[in-house]
């Protein structure tokens, strides 16, 4: 009887572990988005509008600002040529102001550089970098990387100064994979000859899509005559159209495959490309991923069952007692140590109890006016010293007088 008991225990244990929630596959626990515009100046209005539209979409689908890295090299809303100051629109109907009142740009202006982008992906940043500007992903994070700007065969221009090569991008993703910084990546790029940018990728778990093939341009969709420039690119426009119409909220079951199938040459005026071969399971597995796996923030929550209050209270009582015991032991130890040393007060026990207290430390040196007289005197000394040194020359050259 007892033996059977023993054998049953692990099974019970397993059952208990399972009982907490439904069975889950190895899934992602967080969603991140890296949205990059690489061009500045007014006539590139559409690129910023592209990025801001995607930004609005991922935010709508629940990715918090802390998990969106938005790189905008220019500020169209405050551009003096903007006929509608403070706003950015991606459509001539001007229904939705993309700038809104709640937008968090992480890298702006001249901070948008190739180096900063690669540093962001590989997280090789200094201590001083705030968390909001870092991509703090782990092996359970799905990342949407969206880039737009002016590009060419295997490069994408950053501002007017530099460019990122397809090799650099591939190496950066490989470093991320090596360090287990992502679970799956959807790489999306809207630029001329965009498909060449993902052609060099070689790290697994990446679905890549781009707006146009080698030697194909990526076209703008339409211009707003009052703004005076094109306001959105075709590829992004039709992506948005799909996302707005088909993925209304996070419960949508549309797949990435559905999204890709919506691309046609008639709409985009270039051949949008998709790359599945890096994804384990190939096209089939990749296409079956939900759109919200990348554009939304869907987590598997664990709902608590009915409460067993007594259990938790027991635990609390237990921890109180144990903490008290430990404290007592520490004190005893402190006393014995104290006896050995002297009767000096023991600061350690106090320290341990203050884990909840926030410690504020002042790093800046205070500005004081102390030592005024000393300053003057030492200054006088220094000036006199200089004068003496200067005069020394004359003393050393007596013959010349």
């Amino acid at each position, binding site marked *: 009887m*007892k*033996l059977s*008991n*023993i054998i049953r*225990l*692990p099974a019970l244990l397993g059952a208990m*572990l*399972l009982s907490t929630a439904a069975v*889950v596959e190895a*899934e992602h626990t*967080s969603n991140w988005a890296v949205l990059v515009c690489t061009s500045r100046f007014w006539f590139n209005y559409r690129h910023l509008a592209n990025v801001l539209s995607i930004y609005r979409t991922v935010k709508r689908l*629940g990715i*918090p*600002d802390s998990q969106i890295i938005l790189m905008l090299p220019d500020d169209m809303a405050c551009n003096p040529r903007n006929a509608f100051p403070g706003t950015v629109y991606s459509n001539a109907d001007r229904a939705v102001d993309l700038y809104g009142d*709640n937008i968090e740009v992480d890298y702006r202006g001249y901070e948008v550089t190739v*180096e900063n982008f*690669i*540093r962001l992906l590989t997280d*090789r*940043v*200094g201590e001083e970098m705030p*968390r*909001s500007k870092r991509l703090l992903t782990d092996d*359970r994070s799905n990342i949407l990387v969206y880039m737009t700007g002016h590009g060419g065969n295997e490069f994408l221009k950053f501002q007017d100064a530099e460019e990122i*090569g397809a*090799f*650099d991008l591939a*190496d*950066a993703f*490989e*470093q991320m994979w*090596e*360090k*287990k910084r992502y679970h799956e990546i959807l790489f999306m790029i809207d630029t001329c000859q965009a498909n060449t940018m993902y052609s060099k990728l070689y790290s697994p778990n990446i679905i890549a899509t781009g707006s146009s093939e080698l030697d194909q341009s990526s076209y703008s969709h339409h211009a707003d005559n009052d703004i005076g420039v094109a306001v959105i690119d075709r590829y992004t426009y039709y992506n948005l159209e799909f996302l707005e119409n088909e993925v209304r909220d*996070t419960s949508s079951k549309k797949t990435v495959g559905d999204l890709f199938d919506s691309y046609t040459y008639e709409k985009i005026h270039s051949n949008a490309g998709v790359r599945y071969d890096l994804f384990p399971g190939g096209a089939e597995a990749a296409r079956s991923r939900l759109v919200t796996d990348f554009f939304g*923030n*869907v*987590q*598997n*929550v*664990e*709902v*608590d069952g*009915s*409460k067993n*209050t007594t259990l*938790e209270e*027991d*635990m*609390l009582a*237990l*921890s*109180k007692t*144990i*903490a008290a015991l*430990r404290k007592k032991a520490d004190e005893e130890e402190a006393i014995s140590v104290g006896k050995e040393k002297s009767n000096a007060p023991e600061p350690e026990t106090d320290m*341990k*109890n203050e*884990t*909840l207290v926030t410690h504020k430390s002042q790093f800046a040196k205070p500005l004081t006016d102390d030592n005024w007289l000393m300053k003057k005197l030492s200054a006088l000394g220094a000036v006199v010293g200089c004068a003496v040194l200067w005069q020394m020359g004359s003393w050393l050259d007596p013959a010349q007088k």
Partner: protein
Amino acid sequence: MTARRSTDHGAAGDTLSSDTQTATLTSTSTPMATPLEPATAATSSTLEEPPPEKLSDVRRRIWVIVSFWLIVLLLGLPIWWKTTTIHRANLPLKEMLDWADGKACRPVFPLRISIQANSLQEQEAQNLLRLTQHALDDLNDFSGHHLRLQLSSPAAAQKQKDEPDTALTIRLLPGEAVTATLDPYEPVLDITYPPNAAPSATSASSTLATYVAGQLRSTFAEEQAIISYLLSSNSIPSDYRPQGLTPEAAESLAKRTTRSLKYAPTYHLTFSLFTSGPLPSSWDIEAAIQDYMKPVLDLLSPIHNFTIDTQVQLYASPGVQNQVLSKDDLSSFINAAEWPLSPSIGGAPTVNFIVFVGNQTIALSSQQDQDAVAEGGLNTSQSWLIPQWGTVYLLSLPHDTAHVSVDALKQPLLTFTSHLLSLTGTPNSGSLPLRLSTLSRIRSADLLLRASSTLGSLARLALALKSISIPSSVADGVSKTIVHLRRACETLGEAEGLEHARIAEAEAERAFFEKSMVGQLYFPDEHKVAVYLPLLGPVAVPLVMGLLNELKAWRKRRREAAEKRKAKKKE
């Protein structure tokens, strides 16, 4: 050359220009000065013969050229070499890869379990111990997790208990029947046995021994499962893996790792009160934390530090407006766009605990549950856990409550506390002290494996990206990591082991994320030509031409001198 010499002063100008052909003049004078050959001078028929160059002038010119070339050769070249070579510190790649493959360390947790059997004879106790150990060894299929029994003498009992190396103490007490209870306050397993169950000094088998072994095994079953799962998911060679991991168990373990946060020495706890209306606008959160959470935080303090902040936001609208929330709604309940839930203060990961005051309720998926809600809501739950993120607790209060009291916060805080334990990865079974000591062992193993895999990643990157520079700080970090890994491996299962593993992991991360290791990733050689040529080309032309001309002149002078000597000899 003769063509250029169009005026009668050409030859005379020669001395002047060849002496001043420093870079100062290159911007104005394009044609290079060349020493005039007497032969060509002679051909310019009517022009008067310039006087021969003075020896002192020749020497001076040589000195000028030498002074420039000395700087180029003695300073320029070494600086070029030093500043443009990609510095790649030597990394112990082989060793790093060994760590990553698990060849360098075989993670073994020697758990020492002491048996106090005050009521047994020394001999009997020894025999019991031997038998139990046998039984354990027979049951154990995971060599990485080894339970080692030892007998503690009554006199040393007090001391043994304090010794931190002992994972568990078994107190054998005579009693009515065979029972086992875990002491809730200390890592002690009380086992009572009827008088006849104790084995004699010579018997070869004992039910008591088997029972004790079984109890021990079940006590540590979860720990074993977790650690073996960790090892297997980190591609540690299979011979250390236990065979008996069922798919379901593996799945639940995967779920456990999914839920728990990545290890960090410090966690930042954010307690947020969101209310759907104007009230309540204040809460007794500090007192509540002090009462209901602090004791557990104190217990966790050897493993983690915690920082805490709190916030209140009124008129907060959740992401889902439904009165009754289904399970799907829960995942979008958090209004990430509007709720200020991402304090980017400090470097510690944040754990969110949200109390939402509103009238929404959760309905568990089935229809019956919804009926129950309508009847009185006893069967509804009020909180859910979001893996690696935190907890949301729906608190329903009377409409006019302006202040949330400590009592009202008791239930939420207790929920948060138990969720915090599972978010930190504490196992579910066993008594609290055991769970905590298990947690520290799991974390040691976890950190050890993560540091090892980081080393492996770094080594593979260093091999794959030939043009990436590796500063010496990375090599330092790697060697520090290896030292601490080795120590952690030796002291696994002890408090020291956790400390070493923690340092190793921090050092490995720092080495991998070394800031200066970015820079030039893809820089083809033709770009280098484009960098050097426009800048160094113009400087190099006068320098090289000057040197060549001077060499030519020198050779000519030597030849002439030799001819002269020959002529003299002939005479």
